Protein backbone atom coordinates (compact mmCIF):
# COMPACT_ATOMS: atom_id res chain seq x y z
CA UNK A 1 0.00 0.00 0.00
CA UNK A 2 1.37 3.37 -0.89
CA UNK A 3 2.00 5.87 1.89
CA UNK A 4 -0.54 8.35 0.53
CA UNK A 5 -3.18 5.62 0.43
CA UNK A 6 -2.88 5.06 4.19
CA UNK A 7 -4.08 8.57 4.84
CA UNK A 8 -6.71 8.37 2.16
CA UNK A 9 -8.01 5.27 3.91
CA UNK A 10 -8.11 6.95 7.28
CA UNK A 11 -9.74 10.01 5.78
CA UNK A 12 -12.45 7.86 4.29
CA UNK A 13 -12.91 5.96 7.54
CA UNK A 14 -13.22 9.23 9.40
CA UNK A 15 -15.74 10.65 6.98
CA UNK A 16 -17.73 7.42 7.02
CA UNK A 17 -18.69 7.77 10.63
CA UNK A 18 -17.72 10.94 12.41
CA UNK A 19 -19.61 9.99 15.54
CA UNK A 20 -17.00 7.42 16.46
CA UNK A 21 -13.98 9.45 15.47
CA UNK A 22 -12.11 11.33 18.13
CA UNK A 23 -11.66 15.05 17.66
CA UNK A 24 -8.01 14.91 16.70
CA UNK A 25 -7.90 11.58 14.91
CA UNK A 26 -6.49 12.84 11.65
CA UNK A 27 -3.91 15.03 13.34
CA UNK A 28 -2.63 12.01 15.21
CA UNK A 29 -2.40 9.87 12.11
CA UNK A 30 -0.76 12.54 10.03
CA UNK A 31 2.21 12.41 12.41
CA UNK A 32 2.98 9.11 10.76
CA UNK A 33 3.67 10.73 7.44
CA UNK A 34 6.46 12.91 8.84
CA UNK A 35 8.08 9.94 10.55
CA UNK A 36 7.95 7.76 7.46
CA UNK A 37 9.28 10.41 5.14
CA UNK A 38 12.14 11.22 7.51
CA UNK A 39 13.07 7.54 7.78
CA UNK A 40 13.13 6.96 4.04
CA UNK A 41 10.21 4.54 4.14
CA UNK A 42 8.72 3.91 0.73
CA UNK A 43 5.69 1.68 1.32
CA UNK A 44 3.38 0.76 4.15
CA UNK A 45 1.31 -2.36 4.74
CA UNK A 46 -1.30 -2.80 7.45
CA UNK A 47 -3.36 -5.88 8.20
CA UNK A 48 -5.64 -6.39 11.19
CA UNK A 49 -8.20 -8.97 12.15
CA UNK A 50 -10.66 -9.47 14.94
CA UNK A 51 -11.26 -5.73 14.95
CA UNK A 52 -14.30 -4.62 16.94
CA UNK A 53 -16.39 -3.32 14.06
CA UNK A 54 -20.06 -2.93 13.24
CA UNK A 55 -19.38 -4.78 10.01
CA UNK A 56 -19.53 -8.34 11.29
CA UNK A 57 -18.96 -9.60 7.77
CA UNK A 58 -15.65 -7.75 7.51
CA UNK A 59 -13.59 -8.55 10.58
CA UNK A 60 -10.41 -8.42 8.51
CA UNK A 61 -9.03 -5.13 7.33
CA UNK A 62 -6.32 -5.75 4.79
CA UNK A 63 -4.60 -2.95 2.97
CA UNK A 64 -1.50 -4.62 1.66
CA UNK A 65 0.15 -3.03 -1.35
CA UNK A 66 -1.79 -2.05 -4.45
CA UNK A 67 -5.04 -3.69 -5.66
CA UNK A 68 -3.17 -5.82 -8.19
CA UNK A 69 -0.98 -7.14 -5.39
CA UNK A 70 -3.97 -7.98 -3.24
CA UNK A 71 -5.34 -10.11 -6.07
CA UNK A 72 -1.97 -11.75 -6.53
CA UNK A 73 -1.80 -12.43 -2.79
CA UNK A 74 -5.20 -14.06 -2.75
CA UNK A 75 -4.55 -16.19 -5.82
CA UNK A 76 -1.19 -17.40 -4.59
CA UNK A 77 -2.41 -17.89 -1.01
CA UNK A 78 0.56 -15.71 -0.11
CA UNK A 79 -0.89 -14.86 3.29
CA UNK A 80 -0.32 -18.48 4.29
CA UNK A 81 3.24 -18.38 3.10
CA UNK A 82 4.69 -14.99 3.70
CA UNK A 83 7.28 -15.33 6.47
CA UNK A 84 6.79 -11.78 7.61
CA UNK A 85 3.09 -12.45 8.18
CA UNK A 86 3.80 -15.75 9.90
CA UNK A 87 6.41 -14.25 12.18
CA UNK A 88 4.43 -11.08 12.71
CA UNK A 89 1.06 -12.53 13.59
CA UNK A 90 2.53 -15.34 15.62
CA UNK A 91 4.88 -13.17 17.62
CA UNK A 92 4.97 -9.94 19.56
CA UNK A 93 8.50 -8.76 18.79
CA UNK A 94 9.29 -6.43 15.87
CA UNK A 95 10.57 -8.24 12.79
CA UNK A 96 13.63 -6.76 11.11
CA UNK A 97 13.54 -8.14 7.57
CA UNK A 98 17.34 -8.15 7.46
CA UNK A 99 17.31 -10.88 10.10
CA UNK A 100 14.96 -13.18 8.19
CA UNK A 101 16.60 -16.39 7.09
CA UNK A 102 17.58 -15.62 3.50
CA UNK A 103 18.27 -19.28 2.78
CA UNK A 104 14.59 -20.04 3.29
CA UNK A 105 13.19 -20.45 -0.25
CA UNK A 106 10.01 -18.58 0.69
CA UNK A 107 11.99 -15.63 2.03
CA UNK A 108 14.19 -15.66 -1.05
CA UNK A 109 11.13 -15.60 -3.31
CA UNK A 110 9.40 -12.88 -1.32
CA UNK A 111 12.41 -10.59 -1.24
CA UNK A 112 13.03 -11.24 -4.93
CA UNK A 113 9.54 -10.00 -5.70
CA UNK A 114 9.98 -7.02 -3.41
CA UNK A 115 13.06 -6.01 -5.37
CA UNK A 116 11.34 -6.71 -8.67
CA UNK A 117 8.55 -4.29 -7.81
CA UNK A 118 11.08 -1.76 -6.49
CA UNK A 119 9.50 -1.61 -3.06
CA UNK A 120 12.78 -1.30 -1.18
CA UNK A 121 15.15 -4.06 -0.20
CA UNK A 122 14.52 -3.95 3.51
CA UNK A 123 11.80 -3.36 5.99
CA UNK A 124 10.31 -3.89 9.38
CA UNK A 125 7.08 -5.45 10.59
CA UNK A 126 5.53 -4.45 13.88
CA UNK A 127 3.01 -6.88 15.43
CA UNK A 128 0.04 -5.14 17.02
CA UNK A 129 -2.31 -6.29 19.75
CA UNK A 130 -5.46 -4.54 20.91
CA UNK A 131 -7.61 -4.41 23.99
CA UNK A 132 -10.44 -6.27 22.21
CA UNK A 133 -8.13 -9.17 21.40
CA UNK A 134 -7.44 -7.99 17.87
CA UNK A 135 -4.21 -8.76 16.05
CA UNK A 136 -2.52 -6.54 13.51
CA UNK A 137 0.67 -6.20 11.55
CA UNK A 138 2.16 -2.93 10.39
CA UNK A 139 4.96 -3.27 7.85
CA UNK A 140 7.15 -0.77 6.08
CA UNK A 141 9.60 -1.16 3.21
CA UNK A 142 12.67 1.00 2.92
CA UNK A 143 15.74 1.28 0.75
CA UNK A 144 18.83 -0.78 1.53
CA UNK A 145 20.76 2.17 2.91
CA UNK A 146 17.98 3.62 5.06
CA UNK A 147 18.83 3.40 8.74
CA UNK A 148 21.61 0.91 8.19
CA UNK A 149 23.43 1.75 11.42
CA UNK A 150 22.24 -0.09 14.55
CA UNK A 151 21.41 3.06 16.58
CA UNK A 152 19.42 4.42 13.65
CA UNK A 153 17.60 1.15 13.19
CA UNK A 154 16.83 1.03 16.89
CA UNK A 155 15.46 4.56 16.78
CA UNK A 156 13.39 3.69 13.73
CA UNK A 157 11.96 0.57 15.39
CA UNK A 158 11.03 2.64 18.46
CA UNK A 159 9.28 5.20 16.27
CA UNK A 160 7.49 2.51 14.30
CA UNK A 161 6.36 0.83 17.52
CA UNK A 162 4.85 4.11 18.67
CA UNK A 163 3.42 5.24 15.35
CA UNK A 164 1.94 1.87 14.40
CA UNK A 165 0.10 1.79 17.73
CA UNK A 166 -1.27 5.29 17.07
CA UNK A 167 -2.28 4.24 13.57
CA UNK A 168 -4.00 1.12 14.88
CA UNK A 169 -5.78 3.10 17.60
CA UNK A 170 -7.02 5.50 14.94
CA UNK A 171 -8.37 2.72 12.75
CA UNK A 172 -9.91 1.15 15.82
CA UNK A 173 -11.44 4.45 16.81
CA UNK A 174 -12.94 4.88 13.38
CA UNK A 175 -14.40 1.39 13.25
CA UNK A 176 -15.17 0.63 16.86
CA UNK A 177 -18.60 -0.14 18.16
CA UNK A 178 -17.85 1.13 21.65
CA UNK A 179 -19.28 4.53 22.56
CA UNK A 180 -16.95 7.50 22.42
CA UNK A 181 -14.94 7.79 25.61
CA UNK A 182 -13.53 11.09 26.82
CA UNK A 183 -9.75 11.34 27.04
CA UNK A 184 -8.91 10.67 30.68
CA UNK A 185 -5.57 10.49 32.44
CA UNK A 186 -4.86 9.40 35.99
CA UNK A 187 -3.96 12.03 38.59
CA UNK A 188 -0.45 10.61 38.68
CA UNK A 189 -0.03 10.98 34.93
CA UNK A 190 -1.39 14.53 35.05
CA UNK A 191 0.93 15.42 37.93
CA UNK A 192 3.94 14.07 36.01
CA UNK A 193 2.95 15.97 32.84
CA UNK A 194 2.35 19.16 34.80
CA UNK A 195 5.77 19.03 36.43
CA UNK A 196 7.42 18.02 33.16
CA UNK A 197 5.85 21.05 31.51
CA UNK A 198 7.55 23.20 34.10
CA UNK A 199 10.91 21.76 33.11
CA UNK A 200 11.25 19.60 36.22
CA UNK A 201 13.64 16.66 35.94
CA UNK A 202 12.43 13.07 36.37
CA UNK A 203 14.36 12.85 39.63
CA UNK A 204 12.75 16.03 40.99
CA UNK A 205 9.30 14.88 39.90
CA UNK A 206 9.97 11.66 41.75
CA UNK A 207 10.95 13.55 44.89
CA UNK A 208 7.82 15.69 44.62
CA UNK A 209 5.56 12.68 44.16
CA UNK A 210 7.37 10.33 46.51
CA UNK A 211 8.21 7.96 43.68
CA UNK A 212 11.34 6.66 41.99
CA UNK A 213 12.42 8.20 38.66
CA UNK A 214 11.65 4.79 37.10
CA UNK A 215 8.00 5.17 38.10
CA UNK A 216 7.94 8.78 36.88
CA UNK A 217 9.15 7.75 33.44
CA UNK A 218 6.60 4.92 33.51
CA UNK A 219 3.66 7.30 34.16
CA UNK A 220 4.97 9.71 31.52
CA UNK A 221 5.06 6.85 29.02
CA UNK A 222 1.51 5.70 29.83
CA UNK A 223 0.38 9.33 29.53
CA UNK A 224 2.13 9.62 26.16
CA UNK A 225 0.41 6.48 24.91
CA UNK A 226 -2.99 7.61 26.19
CA UNK A 227 -2.62 10.96 24.43
CA UNK A 228 -1.45 9.26 21.22
CA UNK A 229 1.60 11.49 21.12
CA UNK A 230 4.86 10.39 19.54
CA UNK A 231 7.04 11.67 22.38
CA UNK A 232 6.73 12.80 25.98
CA UNK A 233 7.38 16.40 24.92
CA UNK A 234 4.50 16.21 22.47
CA UNK A 235 2.34 14.56 25.13
CA UNK A 236 2.96 17.56 27.39
CA UNK A 237 2.05 19.85 24.52
CA UNK A 238 -1.09 17.82 23.71
CA UNK A 239 -2.21 17.82 27.33
CA UNK A 240 -1.74 21.58 27.47
CA UNK A 241 -3.53 22.12 24.16
CA UNK A 242 -6.65 20.20 25.11
CA UNK A 243 -6.77 21.66 28.60
CA UNK A 244 -5.81 18.66 30.66
CA UNK A 245 -3.04 20.66 32.28
CA UNK A 246 -2.48 24.37 32.69
CA UNK A 247 1.05 25.59 32.90
CA UNK A 248 2.19 29.00 34.01
CA UNK A 249 -0.61 29.59 36.46
CA UNK A 250 0.25 26.62 38.58
CA UNK A 251 3.17 26.24 40.90
CA UNK A 252 5.24 23.16 41.51
CA UNK A 253 3.05 22.49 44.51
CA UNK A 254 0.05 21.81 42.32
CA UNK A 255 1.71 18.70 41.02
CA UNK A 256 2.28 17.48 44.54
CA UNK A 257 -1.27 18.23 45.64
CA UNK A 258 -2.71 16.22 42.80
CA UNK A 259 -0.96 13.06 43.95
CA UNK A 260 -3.59 10.49 44.87
CA UNK A 261 -3.71 9.64 48.53
CA UNK A 262 -3.37 5.94 47.93
CA UNK A 263 0.00 6.26 46.17
CA UNK A 264 1.78 6.34 49.51
CA UNK A 265 -0.13 3.27 50.59
CA UNK A 266 1.79 1.08 48.21
CA UNK A 267 3.36 -1.68 50.19
CA UNK A 268 7.04 -0.79 50.15
CA UNK A 269 8.01 -3.44 52.66
CA UNK A 270 8.23 -5.86 49.79
CA UNK A 271 11.02 -3.90 48.10
Amino acid sequence: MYREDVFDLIDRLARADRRTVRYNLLDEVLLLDEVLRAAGVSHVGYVAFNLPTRRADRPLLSVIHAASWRKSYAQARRVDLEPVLRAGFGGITPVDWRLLDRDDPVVEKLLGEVLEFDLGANGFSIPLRGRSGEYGLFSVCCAEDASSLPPQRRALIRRLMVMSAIFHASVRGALAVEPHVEMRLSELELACLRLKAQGTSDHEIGVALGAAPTAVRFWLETARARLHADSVDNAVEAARRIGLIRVGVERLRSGIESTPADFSSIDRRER
Partner: protein
Amino acid sequence: MIALLPGESRALFPRLMDEMYGLRLAAARAHAGRPSGAVHPLAVVDYFDSLDPLYVLALDEMECVAGALRLLPTAGVTMLNAAFAGVLPDGLRVESPLIWEASRLTLRTVGDARATEAAIDRTIGQLGVALNAIAETATLTHLIGVFDRSMHRLLSHRGCAGETFAPPMRIDGADMFAVLYEVGAAMNAPFKSLAGDATAPPINLADLERLRQTGCCR
Protein backbone atom coordinates in the same frame (compact mmCIF):
# COMPACT_ATOMS: atom_id res chain seq x y z
CA MET B 1 20.28 -21.59 27.73
CA ILE B 2 17.30 -19.40 27.01
CA ALA B 3 14.76 -20.40 24.36
CA LEU B 4 11.99 -18.17 23.02
CA LEU B 5 8.79 -19.87 22.00
CA PRO B 6 6.03 -17.83 20.33
CA GLY B 7 2.65 -19.07 21.50
CA GLU B 8 1.48 -19.92 18.02
CA SER B 9 4.36 -22.43 17.70
CA ARG B 10 3.69 -24.18 21.00
CA ALA B 11 2.26 -27.28 19.31
CA LEU B 12 5.65 -27.91 17.73
CA PHE B 13 7.30 -28.24 21.15
CA PRO B 14 4.94 -30.34 23.29
CA ARG B 15 7.64 -31.58 25.68
CA LEU B 16 8.78 -28.11 26.59
CA MET B 17 5.22 -26.87 27.05
CA ASP B 18 4.40 -29.90 29.17
CA GLU B 19 7.43 -29.29 31.38
CA MET B 20 6.49 -25.62 31.79
CA TYR B 21 2.94 -26.52 32.77
CA GLY B 22 4.35 -29.16 35.10
CA LEU B 23 6.38 -26.48 36.92
CA ARG B 24 3.28 -24.31 37.24
CA LEU B 25 1.29 -27.22 38.61
CA ALA B 26 3.95 -28.18 41.16
CA ALA B 27 4.15 -24.59 42.36
CA ALA B 28 0.36 -24.22 42.59
CA ARG B 29 0.10 -27.39 44.68
CA ALA B 30 3.00 -26.48 46.94
CA HIS B 31 1.93 -22.89 47.55
CA ALA B 32 -1.69 -23.81 48.16
CA GLY B 33 -0.52 -26.37 50.70
CA ARG B 34 -2.78 -28.93 49.15
CA PRO B 35 -2.11 -32.60 48.46
CA SER B 36 -1.36 -33.74 44.96
CA GLY B 37 -4.57 -33.91 42.96
CA ALA B 38 -6.31 -31.08 44.85
CA VAL B 39 -5.23 -28.61 42.18
CA HIS B 40 -6.65 -29.53 38.82
CA PRO B 41 -3.98 -29.69 36.10
CA LEU B 42 -6.09 -27.48 33.83
CA ALA B 43 -5.90 -24.69 36.41
CA VAL B 44 -2.31 -24.03 35.39
CA VAL B 45 -3.34 -22.93 31.88
CA ASP B 46 -5.22 -19.66 31.86
CA TYR B 47 -6.96 -17.46 29.30
CA PHE B 48 -3.82 -15.40 28.69
CA ASP B 49 -2.04 -18.48 27.38
CA SER B 50 -4.52 -18.46 24.50
CA LEU B 51 -3.40 -15.01 23.39
CA ASP B 52 -0.19 -16.21 21.73
CA PRO B 53 2.26 -14.79 24.27
CA LEU B 54 6.00 -15.09 23.87
CA TYR B 55 7.26 -17.78 26.26
CA VAL B 56 10.76 -17.36 27.65
CA LEU B 57 12.15 -20.70 28.77
CA ALA B 58 15.33 -21.33 30.76
CA LEU B 59 16.70 -24.74 29.83
CA ASP B 60 19.30 -26.69 31.82
CA GLU B 61 22.20 -28.73 30.44
CA MET B 62 19.78 -31.57 29.63
CA GLU B 63 17.51 -29.10 27.77
CA CYS B 64 14.82 -29.51 30.42
CA VAL B 65 12.79 -26.47 31.49
CA ALA B 66 14.19 -25.04 34.73
CA GLY B 67 12.17 -21.84 34.66
CA ALA B 68 9.73 -19.98 32.45
CA LEU B 69 7.59 -16.89 32.06
CA ARG B 70 5.45 -15.35 29.37
CA LEU B 71 5.35 -11.92 27.76
CA LEU B 72 2.34 -9.99 26.47
CA PRO B 73 2.15 -6.39 25.23
CA THR B 74 0.05 -4.14 27.44
CA ALA B 75 -1.55 -2.70 24.29
CA GLY B 76 -3.48 -5.97 24.18
CA VAL B 77 -5.23 -8.03 26.83
CA THR B 78 -3.10 -8.60 29.93
CA MET B 79 -3.35 -10.08 33.39
CA LEU B 80 -2.48 -6.70 34.88
CA ASN B 81 -5.40 -4.89 33.28
CA ALA B 82 -7.79 -7.75 33.98
CA ALA B 83 -6.83 -8.51 37.55
CA PHE B 84 -5.46 -5.24 38.91
CA ALA B 85 -8.00 -2.92 37.30
CA GLY B 86 -9.49 -2.05 40.68
CA VAL B 87 -6.21 -0.89 42.19
CA LEU B 88 -4.54 0.85 39.26
CA PRO B 89 -4.55 4.66 39.58
CA ASP B 90 -8.04 5.97 38.81
CA GLY B 91 -8.93 2.54 37.45
CA LEU B 92 -7.20 3.28 34.15
CA ARG B 93 -5.60 0.54 32.08
CA VAL B 94 -1.84 0.43 31.67
CA GLU B 95 -1.59 0.50 27.91
CA SER B 96 1.47 1.28 25.82
CA PRO B 97 3.26 -0.42 22.92
CA LEU B 98 6.50 0.22 24.80
CA ILE B 99 5.44 -1.57 27.99
CA TRP B 100 5.01 -5.34 28.15
CA GLU B 101 3.85 -7.62 30.91
CA ALA B 102 5.84 -10.60 32.22
CA SER B 103 3.65 -13.07 34.09
CA ARG B 104 3.41 -16.68 35.26
CA LEU B 105 7.04 -16.79 36.33
CA THR B 106 7.70 -20.31 37.47
CA LEU B 107 10.89 -22.00 38.60
CA ARG B 108 12.01 -25.50 39.39
CA THR B 109 12.12 -25.09 43.16
CA VAL B 110 9.74 -27.52 44.80
CA GLY B 111 10.62 -31.12 45.50
CA ASP B 112 13.27 -31.31 42.84
CA ALA B 113 16.80 -32.32 43.70
CA ARG B 114 18.13 -30.27 40.79
CA ALA B 115 16.76 -27.06 42.34
CA THR B 116 19.82 -26.03 44.34
CA GLU B 117 20.23 -22.41 45.44
CA ALA B 118 22.93 -21.96 42.81
CA ALA B 119 20.68 -23.40 40.10
CA ILE B 120 17.78 -21.14 41.13
CA ASP B 121 20.10 -18.11 41.10
CA ARG B 122 21.34 -19.03 37.66
CA THR B 123 17.84 -19.57 36.28
CA ILE B 124 16.52 -16.28 37.64
CA GLY B 125 19.61 -14.51 36.32
CA GLN B 126 19.30 -16.03 32.86
CA LEU B 127 15.60 -15.19 32.61
CA GLY B 128 16.17 -11.59 33.75
CA VAL B 129 19.06 -11.00 31.36
CA ALA B 130 17.01 -12.48 28.52
CA LEU B 131 14.01 -10.31 29.43
CA ASN B 132 16.13 -7.19 29.31
CA ALA B 133 17.66 -8.24 25.99
CA ILE B 134 14.25 -8.95 24.44
CA ALA B 135 12.92 -5.64 25.73
CA GLU B 136 15.91 -3.75 24.35
CA THR B 137 15.47 -5.40 20.96
CA ALA B 138 11.83 -4.37 20.95
CA THR B 139 12.89 -0.88 22.15
CA LEU B 140 10.60 -1.08 25.19
CA THR B 141 10.82 1.41 28.04
CA HIS B 142 9.42 -0.76 30.84
CA LEU B 143 8.37 -4.26 31.79
CA ILE B 144 5.72 -5.03 34.37
CA GLY B 145 6.09 -8.24 36.31
CA VAL B 146 2.92 -9.84 37.66
CA PHE B 147 4.20 -12.47 40.07
CA ASP B 148 2.81 -14.48 42.94
CA ARG B 149 4.10 -14.02 46.49
CA SER B 150 6.60 -16.88 46.39
CA MET B 151 8.23 -15.67 43.16
CA HIS B 152 8.15 -12.08 44.42
CA ARG B 153 9.92 -13.20 47.58
CA LEU B 154 12.54 -15.16 45.64
CA LEU B 155 13.25 -12.10 43.50
CA SER B 156 13.26 -9.75 46.49
CA HIS B 157 15.83 -11.83 48.34
CA ARG B 158 18.08 -11.60 45.32
CA GLY B 159 17.66 -7.85 44.80
CA CYS B 160 15.70 -8.32 41.57
CA ALA B 161 12.17 -7.49 42.70
CA GLY B 162 11.68 -4.31 40.69
CA GLU B 163 9.58 -1.38 41.86
CA THR B 164 6.21 -2.20 43.43
CA PHE B 165 3.64 0.06 41.83
CA ALA B 166 0.24 -1.30 42.84
CA PRO B 167 -1.05 -2.88 46.02
CA PRO B 168 -0.98 -6.69 46.04
CA MET B 169 -4.14 -8.41 44.81
CA ARG B 170 -5.55 -11.71 45.98
CA ILE B 171 -6.43 -13.82 42.95
CA ASP B 172 -7.64 -17.41 43.24
CA GLY B 173 -6.25 -17.62 46.75
CA ALA B 174 -2.79 -16.32 45.82
CA ASP B 175 -1.33 -12.88 46.57
CA MET B 176 -0.19 -11.31 43.31
CA PHE B 177 2.30 -8.45 43.03
CA ALA B 178 2.72 -6.01 40.16
CA VAL B 179 6.26 -4.68 39.88
CA LEU B 180 7.97 -2.34 37.48
CA TYR B 181 11.32 -2.69 35.71
CA GLU B 182 12.89 0.02 33.61
CA VAL B 183 14.62 -1.57 30.65
CA GLY B 184 18.37 -1.00 30.52
CA ALA B 185 21.57 -1.43 32.45
CA ALA B 186 19.98 -0.90 35.86
CA MET B 187 17.54 -3.75 35.28
CA ASN B 188 20.19 -5.98 33.77
CA ALA B 189 22.86 -5.64 36.47
CA PRO B 190 21.34 -7.69 39.35
CA PHE B 191 20.22 -10.45 37.00
CA LYS B 192 23.61 -10.52 35.30
CA SER B 193 25.39 -10.96 38.61
CA LEU B 194 23.13 -13.92 39.39
CA ALA B 195 23.59 -15.51 35.99
CA GLY B 196 27.36 -15.16 36.03
CA ASP B 197 28.81 -16.49 32.81
CA ALA B 198 25.71 -18.53 32.03
CA THR B 199 24.21 -16.05 29.58
CA ALA B 200 23.96 -16.36 25.83
CA PRO B 201 21.71 -14.84 23.19
CA PRO B 202 18.22 -16.39 23.34
CA ILE B 203 17.38 -18.98 20.70
CA ASN B 204 14.09 -18.54 18.86
CA LEU B 205 12.58 -22.02 18.71
CA ALA B 206 10.14 -21.06 15.95
CA ASP B 207 13.06 -20.09 13.70
CA LEU B 208 14.82 -23.32 14.59
CA GLU B 209 11.77 -25.34 13.59
CA ARG B 210 11.50 -23.49 10.28
CA LEU B 211 15.16 -24.23 9.59
CA ARG B 212 14.53 -27.90 10.29
CA GLN B 213 11.53 -27.93 7.97
CA THR B 214 13.42 -26.30 5.13
CA GLY B 215 16.35 -28.65 5.57
CA CYS B 216 18.86 -25.96 6.51
CA CYS B 217 19.45 -27.44 9.95
CA ARG B 218 19.55 -31.05 11.11
